[in-house]
């Protein structure tokens, strides 16, 4: 059992508070028509931050689904920059350049899971000691890709950690309509590797579970499926009205166990956090966010930018498309 140190927990809380306030600002930008549809992070902060704090950003890979990027601060400010480019619809947002070990957002449910297994297999072939952590949701676990990825991962014994953020809702489908299994973690039995269930509102518990899974992966013992149970405190996306289906009493109960509040109260009790620190962290988070958003909006956008990050090099057909596109728009290439 590896509990994070107080200093690590403080670092986690900085990232969680940052994600929370930046998410609110991002939501506002969407309501102001300045970014596209997005999925709020509220309620997922402890699970995501706790998990990535158990990783080594220089070696280990993170594959997000679409709700996670604001909580990946541990991987550097470039992640936020690229995420905001993605949110304003700039194709450069779909490219996270080396040495960043983070893949872009994935909207097609569960397709990131086979990617993770392939990436992990590639690392072993390259004798790279990194492990791959991939996020997905309770709804994604019903996709065929989940079972294919889990099966290959088990058979190949690759260094991958499947982290299911079970937030109780797949848009409006509650978990009891999602699976008849006892838990999502229980599905690991079919793949032949361990499945564990942790309190996703406890950043330290998630850290511990990921740390153990990472040790296992690095020792060559293969994958782990972790189910972090939590509650989606916001809407599924900006196009969703959860008041139509989330029982208010359930939401209120979940709010009483808000993961950010929980860690904050623990650290306040230890004398490691107070209102002044909180205000400072929030203000800095918003400054960082506003700067990044300004940079994103100022990013040049060539008429053929949509073709820039599809493949490392243009195929002949893409080159022809690029030429025709630029001829049609009269624009300059990127």
């Amino acid at each position: 059992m590896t509990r994070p140190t107080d200093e690590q927990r403080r670092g986690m809380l900085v990232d969680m508070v940052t994600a929370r306030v930046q998410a609110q600002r991002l939501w506002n930008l969407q309501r102001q028509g300045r970014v596209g549809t997005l999925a709020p992070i509220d309620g997922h902060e402890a699970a995501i931050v706790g998990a990535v704090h158990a990783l080594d950003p220089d070696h280990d890979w993170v594959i997000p689904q679409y709700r996670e990027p604001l909580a990946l601060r541990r991987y550097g400010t470039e992640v936020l920059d690229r995420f905001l480019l993605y949110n304003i619809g700039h194709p450069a947002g779909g490219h996270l350049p080396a040495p960043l070990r983070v893949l872009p957002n994935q909207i097609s449910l569960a397709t990131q899971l086979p990617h993770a297994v392939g990436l992990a297999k590639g690392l072993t072939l390259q004798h790279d000691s990194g492990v791959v952590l991939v996020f997905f949701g309770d709804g994604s676990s019903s996709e065929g890709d989940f079972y294919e990825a889990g099966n290959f991962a088990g058979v190949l014994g690759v260094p991958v950690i499947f982290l299911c953020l079970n937030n109780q809702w797949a848009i409006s489908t509650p978990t009891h309509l999602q699976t008849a299994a006892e838990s999502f973690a229980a599905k690991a039995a079919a793949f032949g590797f361990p499945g564990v269930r942790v309190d996703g509102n406890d950043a330290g518990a998630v850290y511990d579970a990921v740390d153990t899974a990472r040790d296992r992966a690095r020792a060559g013992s293969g994958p782990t499926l972790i189910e972090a149970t939590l509650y989606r405190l916001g809407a599924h996306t900006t196009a969703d009205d959860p008041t139509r289906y989330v029982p208010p009493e359930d939401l209120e109960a979940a709010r009483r166990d808000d993961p950010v509040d929980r860690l904050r109260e623990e650290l306040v009790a230890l004398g490691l956090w107070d209102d002044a620190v909180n205000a400072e962290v929030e203000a800095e988070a918003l400054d960082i966010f506003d700067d990044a958003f300004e940079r994103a909006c100022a990013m040049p956008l060539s008429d053929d930018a949509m073709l820039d990050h599809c493949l490392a090099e243009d195929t002949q057909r893409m080159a022809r498309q690029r030429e025709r596109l630029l001829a049609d728009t009269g624009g300059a290439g990127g």
Partner: protein
Amino acid sequence: MSYHFHLPDIGEGLEEAEIVEWLVAVGDTVARDQALVEVLTDKASSELPSPTAGVVVALGGDEGDRLRVGDLLIEIDDGSAGDADPPRSEATAPPESMPAEPAEASAESHSASRASRPKASPATRRRARELGIDLAGITGTGPGGRILDGDLDAARASAASRTGATAVPAAPSTTAPRGDAPQLGQLPAGRHPLRGVRGVIARNMAQSWSEIPHIHSLDELDASLLLDLRTRMEGMGRPVTPLAVAVVAAARALRAFPQVNACVEGSAEGDEMLVHERVNIGLAVATDGGLVVPVLHDADGLDVFSATTAIEGLAARARTGDLGTADLTGGTFTITNYGSLGGRWATPIIPPGQAAILGMGRIADRPVAVDGSVEVRPLLPYAFGADHRIVDGDLLEAFKRSIVEDLAEPLRLLVDP
């Protein structure tokens, strides 16, 4: 210079939205991210926050107007070198950099235009909604009488200690009907768009009237024991309303006869009978804005006490216009209490998506034959309406009998059916 905030597509592929409520007025100073307006799209109701800090120069529409995505929503003078600018007086020219003011302070300036509405921040309003507290009954302790979160807590505490003394809304009444609102029926000659609540009522009623073949069954029941229950429970500080008894009785009848808790739905293979899983009872409530039907979800889980409390909360939110989408959708059966308006007989229309409705008239003393002699008893006139496509007379009468027997002898609700 001005920032022109155009109505954004806040869903996925929205074309238009209705302005439900302006939270700011022309001349107000607004902070960045301060809520400006509540809009209703076909998906949800949302607050749109200000993209900038500045002074409101113009609003793009009135409450109730529908704007298309891309239409000007609001113009805010933010001192920036923004896009083309209409002429305006120098008095509104803001300093180069507008200090961000908290929403609490700036929203006061529009109190004049909305004097009838209690002052409170959107967050406090939301919380009051969640708690079922009517802001109209609260004295605010904030600046300018603004209602703060603490005031809600105080109101809640005092309500908790004031058991039994609460006025019961929308209950079948032996007293005079409520006074008519002064604006009832008042409209100038001319054409008026059917929009907002009026538009929804118009569409629903036309659909029901044209699609559902109604049958009605009307009768009266002796409400002596029902009124006796109310009086005696009131004496114990545990208020129970006849309407709440009707809700509980109806819920158990709907469970006993699921075919009534149903509706007809078209599908590719032709019409189908959809039997609802949950029992959600809508209560028709007259408001100044028109008829609304808030829904008591899972009414089969309520007893007469919790039903009384839940009805009170819904009625309070209906009066203040604070009902959310969840409050207004999902009904599987409806009770309409035209007795509160003074009515005795009516043949109510079944809402779309349902198969039956119960109408309750005004309880009044009337002569009845009891054991061969004429006695005066309080009688509750009622009307059941049903969709004859799926409910025949025998089922309607059995369903009706179950509810009527429970209303005539509420103690039956203590006994398993």
